[in-house]
């Protein structure tokens, strides 16, 4: 066993890095599974992963980054509009419609659900409901962002082999 210690250690390190990779991938997979199980993401996210290829190896991460960047301006827009008195429900609804559409692009399930709720409050003219729902939406929005950041970090570690696979 120790006769060729170098050889052994080399293969051992290879083995362990391989194991590390496998472990990482499992980690990524399980994290993804939980994101789906907990309702953070929906099918659209899988669609994005399926689009990822050699030409765009980090496609999903790029899209999520783009989403967070662009939607932040919609959020400020909403915030400003919510400060007006009286509330312009039509405008709020319009902005939220846009925001919802955008959120659907990455499969942000919980965020989308809050958007729908918000719009319902808008059509009912319920200012308090709108404000509450908006706060909730922002929470979901931020929580998802953190999770996805972790997820992408793990995915990068796991290596490019990590492609789309459907959660059970």
């Amino acid at each position, binding site marked *: 066993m120790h006769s060729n210690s170098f050889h052994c250690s080399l293969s051992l390190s290879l083995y362990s890095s391989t194991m590390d990779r496998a472990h990482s991938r499992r980690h990524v997979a399980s994290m993804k599974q939980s994101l789906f199980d907990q309702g953070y993401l929906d*099918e*659209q996210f899988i*669609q*994005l992963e*399926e*689009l990822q*290829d050699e030409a*765009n190896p980090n*496609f999903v991460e*790029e*899209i999520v980054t*783009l*989403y967070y960047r*662009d*939607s932040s301006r919609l959020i400020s827009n909403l915030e400003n509009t919510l400060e007006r008195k009286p509330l312009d429900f039509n405008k709020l609804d*319009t902005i939220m*419609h*846009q925001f*919802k*559409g*955008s959120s*659907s*692009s*990455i*499969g942000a399930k919980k965020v989308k659900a809050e958007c729908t709720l918000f719009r319902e409050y808008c059509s009912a003219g319920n200012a308090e409901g709108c404000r509450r729902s908006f706060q909730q939406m922002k929470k979901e929005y931020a929580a998802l962002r953190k999770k996805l950041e972790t997820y992408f970090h793990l995915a990068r570690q796991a290596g490019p082999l990590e492609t789309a696979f459907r959660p059970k």
Partner: protein
Amino acid sequence: MDNGCFSSPRHDAFPAGLRVLVVDDDPTWLRILEKMLKKCLYEVTTCCLATEALKKLRERKDAYDIVISDVNMPDMDGFNLLEQVGLEMDLPVIMMSVDGETSRVMKGVQHGACDYLLKPIRMKELRNIWQHVFRKRMHEARDFESLEAFEGIHLMRTGPDQADEGNLFAVEEMTSMKKRKDADNKHDDKEFGDHSPTKKARVVWSVDLHQKFVKAVNQIGFDKVGPKKILDLMNVPWLTRENVASHLQKYRLYLSRLQKENDQKSSPSGIKHSDSPSKDSGCFSFLNIANKQQNDVANDTFSYSDGTLLLQMDATSHEGDLKDIVSEPTTEKRRASTSGIPEPKMQKGSQMSLNQPFTPVVSSEANHAVFDCTIPTQYSWSEFPKGALKEEQKTLVQIEDSFSQLPLHDTQNHIQVNQSQSMASINSNPHITEEVAASLETKPLYAGYKSDYVSPVSSKGSAVEAFPNQSKNLVVSDQPSEPIFTSNLGLKTQGFNLDYISDLDFYQRYLLLSGEAASEPLEEDLNFFLLHGECHNMNFGLQNIDMSEYYDPRLTGEVPSHFYDSADYSSVDQSLFIV
């Protein structure tokens, strides 16, 4: 090509290489769609603004096979874009939205969308979009078949659904067809080899025909109108009830849109056209024919009194149109118009001939002259003058400049020539001198087209009402190419319809050539966009110059009645326009 209709020169595997234009203001979706389409091996161009998309479409009419657009966009309503694209470019348009409410989807279909996708969109949905392109080509092929006389006439439909109803609006001049053929083999006539004889022949709603239609509608009374009644009144033997029915539907849509726009926009410059200030957008000089109303023209909303209509259509279409118009090689020459016949083509015919009939028109539009100048250069009526509309503002300026250069006062020829060119923009600008007016005569023809183009409703040839209101350009519904021609080519001085110009150009050619020559240009760059008003109308009208019809007094609310001296148009060979 292997696929026949739309094999792109770059790919052999159908439907690979399908050229898609995606329009969405959401950058995330835009990126995703781009990636998805590329995965389908399509060629993708992205746009985040509707106005930008229209510009691109007008720049190169044949550059795209299909358009996918979101419904909600900041600069323009997606449905509006949909309509315009359908009218001007006759491309299949797919709408997208996160909102799947039935009423919205219905609206999409009504406006001519060939499909309505809900976001989030799946790859598999995008894979199949080629079928819309293919279907359209098939229909066109069939239509084409029925228009043997018009080689390369591109029949336009507002939507694939209506294809079967024979709602075709002949459009596109030959040259553009040819270009397309060369470029993408898309409209290769030869490719339409598999027309199925089972479909009824497509109806080409020429300016003439549309005028008859509108006349009939007015006679009956818009409220009581019905396809059968219209058909009887029109007295066109080969026309079927179905043809009329579908045309009526479009007309109604157009009118209602006009109504809405008119209601919404109080100011004349209410042109939705976002990028063209109402004033100088000269874009479309669809003059709303005030006359129309006066003359018992259908109460359709052709008359965009506030020019909003125009704007929408024109703005966008103008851009395109302008561009197209520009394609005329002799544009520069035409501008001068001092030399009389700027257009080489025109020279062929007796340009003078145009003069006569049009003289009456001149009186009202001062802008005509202006229009003339610039327009000729701009539009090569061979192309559908779509793209340049946006540019129209500049063009308008040019036109104005040229106007001053125009020796309106000089020969009638000049004017005439101008007229034809600037026909499009028959502005009721008071400062239009007599001479201009003369030149305007031709313009109205174009103007009419524009307006026609603009709205299906305004078959009446957009009343040229723009006079008082510069910004108003009547955008005639594109459908009734006939009326457009006659009625309302109100060209705002500024925003003359480049399309009109192209139409004018066309018109000039035809009219001037007294019919005979006209047939020649037909072959070349006939822009038969009847529907799209702008060029097509013009061209169409030209060919089908039953001038008497066009220069209907009703059209001349503001335009002097003599403007439409039908008698003189008799020289135009009606047979030119083969419906």
